[in-house]
């Protein structure tokens, strides 16, 4: 019998950004908040350069930029520990950078080059970073949510069954509000609730699944945490446009999930300043609506807060921006200079262990072979049949 689920009290978060002045008014050390500001600027600048590079056809395929939502990835990552696994959807550059992926590896992946985090084989939607416990950007809407439950299953299993201790890690599974209507998400929540998995499903609720406003695609769209309530998940509604709120509320939620080995759902209110992808004329919303949200820019909000606290001044901001622009310029230069992924990579990483018995041909012979000769050789001593 499981403990009864006590719903988390739903209180509107006090507006941190208006509180007090002086560095002591910040809920975190000034250097930490400055680091967050830098990362948010880095993500913003990175995305601007991605859009440019896309126009220049350096980046192909789909490209979904994160501009406007920077506070979500930065605040959430800050609230977690490095060993906590993270998985996300296709709008993933911000999460990768926030988690610590180098902007060089990230941009080279966008360019499809050998120096990319996945050697150019993943692309914009598939940022993976093993050292930083980022288990991917995933392209099929909602498909990453069962994976997130699985990451939590695995950390809990390792900690409890293999190590014989207490579950001590929490997984984050990001999804957009469009993924809320995918069946996989409900199955993931049900399993997480049933198996006491320490996973937080963070719905980056930017109000649109592609071009469909949330109320046109989702029932109870004013209260999407109800989707998690049905599965006994703890819940939180968080202002995703304020990194300090994101950090504070996510930290509290993650601590609870860690302590109790239980799942949670977050309605992370935010806004996507740009289109869904690079080919989106945004006819489904007004410019007035966009301007309204852009006036609530998470970067400006944090800058204002840091300025009020006496931590940030114009000179420091200018120097930070210069540093960030240089870093991203360097990432683009690196991506441009990075070798195109070699054709020899085509058949690598299909399997951990190579087929073993097929040699001498770049293609496994049974698949048609690169040559007309029958080049395979059996490793069991039978030589090639040619």
């Amino acid at each position, binding site marked *: 019998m499981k403990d009864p689920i006590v719903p988390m009290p739903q209180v509107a978060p006090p507006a941190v950004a208006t509180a007090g002045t002086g560095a002591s008014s910040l809920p975190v050390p000034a250097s930490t908040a400055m680091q967050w500001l830098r990362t948010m600027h880095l993500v913003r600048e990175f995305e601007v350069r991605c859009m440019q590079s896309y126009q220049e056809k350096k980046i192909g395929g789909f490209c979904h930029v994160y501009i406007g939502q920077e506070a979500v990835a930065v605040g959430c990552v800050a609230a977690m520990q490095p060993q906590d*696994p993270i*998985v996300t959807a296709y709008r993933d550059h911000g999460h990768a950078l926030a988690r610590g992926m180098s902007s060089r590896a990230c941009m080279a992946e966008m360019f499809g080059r050998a120096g*990319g*985090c*996945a*050697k*150019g*084989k*993943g*692309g914009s939607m*598939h940022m*993976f*970073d*093993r050292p930083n416990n980022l*288990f*991917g950007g*995933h392209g099929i809407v909602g*498909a990453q*949510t*069962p*994976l*997130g*439950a*699985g*990451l*939590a*299953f*695995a*950390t809990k*299993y*390792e900690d*409890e*069954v*293999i190590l014989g201790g207490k579950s001590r890690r929490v997984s984050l599974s990001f999804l957009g509000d469009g993924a809320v209507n995918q069946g*996989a998400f*409900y*199955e*993931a929540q*049900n*399993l997480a609730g*049933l198996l006491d998995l320490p996973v937080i499903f963070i719905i980056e609720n930017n109000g649109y699944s592609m071009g469909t406003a949330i109320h046109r695609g989702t029932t109870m769209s004013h209260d999407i945490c109800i989707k998690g309530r049905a599965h006994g998940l703890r819940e939180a509604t968080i202002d995703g446009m304020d990194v300090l709120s994101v950090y504070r509320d996510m930290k509290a939620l993650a601590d609870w999930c860690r302590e109790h080995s239980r799942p949670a759902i977050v309605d992370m209110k935010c806004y996507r300043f740009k289109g869904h992808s690079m080919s989106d004329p945004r006819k489904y919303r007004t410019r007035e609506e966009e301007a309204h949200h852009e006036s609530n820019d998470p970067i400006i909000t944090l800058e204002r807060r840091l300025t009020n606290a006496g931590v940030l001044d114009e000179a420091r901001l200018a120097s930070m921006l210069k540093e960030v622009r240089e870093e991203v310029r360097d990432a683009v230069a690196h991506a441009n200079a990075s070798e195109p992924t070699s054709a020899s990579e085509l058949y*690598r*990483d*299909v*399997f*951990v*262990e190579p*087929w*073993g*018995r097929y040699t001498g041909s770049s293609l*496994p*012979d*049974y698949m048609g072979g690169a040559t007309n000769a*029958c080049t*395979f050789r*059996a490793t*069991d001593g*039978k030589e*090639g*049949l040619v």
Partner: protein
Amino acid sequence: MSAVMSNPLFREPLSMAGAEREIEFRDAVREAMCEEMRRDKRVYLLGEEVAQYDGAYKVSKGMLAEFGAARVVDTPISESGFSGMAIGSAMLGLRPIVEFMSWSFSLVAADPILNNAPKMLYMSGGQFGCPIVFRGNDGAGGQLGSTHSWSVEGLFSNVPGVKIVIPSTPADAKGLMKTAIRDDDPVFFLESERLLSMKGHVPEGEYLIPFGHAALRRQGKDCTICSWGRPVHFCLEAAEILAKEGIDCEVIDLRTIRPLDLPTVVASVRKTSAAVVVDQSWSFASPGSELAAQIHRHCFDELDNFVHRVHSDDVPTPYAVALEQEYLPNVRKICEAVRSATYRA
């Protein structure tokens, strides 16, 4: 171990020496899972009814009692969710065995099992593998009707990044399952519900059968019959009938269709100059059509006739027993194909 050393690829029937022991196919699969779970704590089993119910088909009988609920995990009827969950856990380093009560139910989990498991290593540039086994009942023959009678190898063998294992005997089931669990890549392990109660000699203790090595089930000189899984038994039955007619058949059991042991097939067809492929999936774009194309390519000069193929008929699986038996690749169809391929029709 000695049986393994003297017969490393199990091309010949396993030695009957020593403790002679006959167990059911389901017991062999269970024995492999239990041995591996005792060896490696990262291995766990999950699926519908695997724990408290002891398995819908009793393959996991007794495993809950031995390993506990943390390692033998009952799931709700939620294939998409638990498949994806298991894949996530495999990415982090566990080695899940996922039981599909029927592979027919895996279709609602097509996205995780086809889009995630086989592509993770590749699209992460080698960073995240997916050491996972999906197993369960595959194929028709139990009058289960159209939706529960899938031979999913016809669909799934098209996808790069998966290994597909279709054993036909209890001994192979054990050795191949142990290999599957230790494999670092996703393995689809297709059992036949019609074979689960079949008994056969299974050595006690440790042995592994490597993937990509066919077994020669019968030697012959007139025609090569290639198959895998349950239809292998129909091929052997047909071969006995044909022998009385003077047609001497060689029967090759591929055991895995990805990887595919083409050298063994090619060597045999170059000897017999005639080939019949027997595949219980539908004919259009199937493992059987792939194998036939490869035989044509590699044995073009040696073949006396085109490669004949026997499949399930190209219709939804019927319920009525007579219709279903007619639909399946049966002994009569195999005999007719061999007679035609060898110009004895």
